[in-house]
């Protein structure tokens, strides 16, 4: 999986490196990192906009990068969000940046920067499932507010098909009960269901 993600982002880095700078409505990018050469920080600032993947229709308003030295590479924690009127929540990416090749490798992500209507759609697709609603009922999760996270195709492929999906998750922090639905927004259907119940 990580190899797949890495390859995906190598391609992104190579293919799109020049595309972000100078665009209108380019996000405000801040990069901070102790003990990292100015040249590397500058390259990260120039390249990060093309490595991140906002949800279609969304343009990030701000991208904040925290860089840390990790051997010969640099690990990056990236927090990106669109204007609050356009989307809510934060997209978090974890990259490894190789200063030698100027490439970004995606290590992990948690993508919640979505328009409220997109989140509502995903929740409602999930709630069409009898199995899900029965689980929410039996695990007393109906009163919890679900989170909606975007799942990138490289991950989705493992569970369904290589396309953008949504993970809609109900969680009770007190009991530890969790129910999550993997939703295909294009087909408007739930494709996988997962639950964890504390005994």
């Amino acid at each position, binding site marked *: *999986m990580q190899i797949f*993600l890495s390859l995906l982002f190598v391609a992104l880095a190579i293919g799109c490196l020049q595309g972000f700078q100078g665009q209108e409505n380019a996000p405000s990018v801040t990069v901070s990192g102790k003990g990292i050469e100015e040249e590397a920080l500058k390259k990260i600032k120039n390249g990060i906009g093309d490595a991140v993947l906002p949800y279609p229709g969304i343009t990030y308003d701000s991208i904040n990068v925290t860089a840390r030295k990790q051997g010969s590479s640099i690990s990056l924690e990236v927090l990106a969000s669109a204007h609050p009127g356009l989307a809510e929540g934060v997209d*978090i990416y*974890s990259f490894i940046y190789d200063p030698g090749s100027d490439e970004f490798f995606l290590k*992990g*992500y*948690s993508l919640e920067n979505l328009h409220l*209507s997109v989140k*509502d*759609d995903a*929740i*409602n697709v999930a*709630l*069409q499932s*009898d*199995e899900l*609603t*029965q*689980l929410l*009922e*039996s695990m*007393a999760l*109906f*009163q*919890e*507010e679900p989170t909606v*996270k975007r*799942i*990138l195709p490289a*991950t*989705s492929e*493992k*569970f369904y098909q290589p396309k953008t*999906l949504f*993970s809609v*998750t109900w*969680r009770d*922090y007190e009991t*530890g009960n*969790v129910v*999550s639905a*993997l939703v295909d927004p294009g*087909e*408007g*259907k739930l494709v*996988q*269901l*997962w*639950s*964890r119940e504390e005994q």
Partner: protein
Amino acid sequence: MLVVGVMFLAVLSVAAQQVSAQEKVVMVAKPTLKPAPSSDLSAKLWISPKNKYLQLKPGEAKEFTVKVKNRGENEITLSPELEVLPFAEYFLEESWIELVPEKATLKAGEKVTFTVKISIPENADVGNYNSVLAFTNETYTRGSFPIKVNSLTMGVNIWKPPVVKILRKYVRDRVEAGGSYTYEIKLENTGDEAVSLSPKFGSTRMGRCLGMGCPTELEEAWVSINSPDKIEAGSKATVTIVVNMPAEAKGIYQGAVNLGINDPSIREWNQEVRLNLVVWQQPVEPYEKAFTVPEGSGKLSIEVGVNQHAYEKFGSINEGEPTFIVTLVSPEGSEISPSARKTVVTSVINLGAGYLPPWEEESSGMYRVERINYRETFILEDPAPGGWKLKVMPSNAAKFEYTIEVE
């Protein structure tokens, strides 16, 4: 694999509930089955899988295989037959199932692979269909139900993509007693024919919370519904639910509005809009606490704060960070309103190890805000000795904590 297991539990749960409702027999969701002693069974078969669960639309078909091995010492002829489960919602019809081969004779140690093809007719109703494919006639009894020993249990969830999309299926809000709240439920008809609507207050769901500690049921008289009687093809409609909370309301209230959508692809109980309303009354008088400042004290510190879930919000009433107006009443009776010297916001961050769905594993080790803690500190230098009073007026907080520290 895990998902399949979860779905089966759900099917069993529904089945058990239906038996309870119809026959007043209490059944558990996970029945403990005790097979008859093996010496009673002439055919010792190994069957894999023992359960198969599919999701199919009307008109769809799916094939799967089942392997059967004769673990006994005698030759056996298998003539698989379809049996109905006594507690199923619907039964798979024999004509929907094709089995190849139809029969098989196995010597000791031999095995055979059957191909089962399930074809759902175009006119099948949506729902959970269950049946048993029995390879032999041996039975044992659970309660009053004879159960086939050598069998494959098959479940098919027949579903259709809903023609009408319900864009909001639950309302969670914090409301004030005596207030009136309006919630708009938007619907979209994606089909080519108009669909009728007849929303009604009330739930058809089973297994609701009953007893102490459960939310109170919303009363029908408090709820009014305004809805068109149909949604035209390819268009949107809005159902408006107005809830008038009585002045004496307290605690948590729940209820549901069944949208009454004439769309057979949506199960009746899956077209409910659930309402969960927490009644909240902003206090008009501050909380008061008397305390004593000893002689020679140089500093009085008051810390007020609240610990909230990241998703805790104030809904229709307000949204925003908690605030506290702190007033101190001196021994002489004069009121002092100190400004917050220090405001601290701390968060509990969960890295999600072990608690994430498998498709969120890429976010393992990443930060997720779980709780937020707001603290404000008020300091008064050289407080006069004697009896003081602390007054705290909270806002945007359903609870708070305070600390009085005298140095």
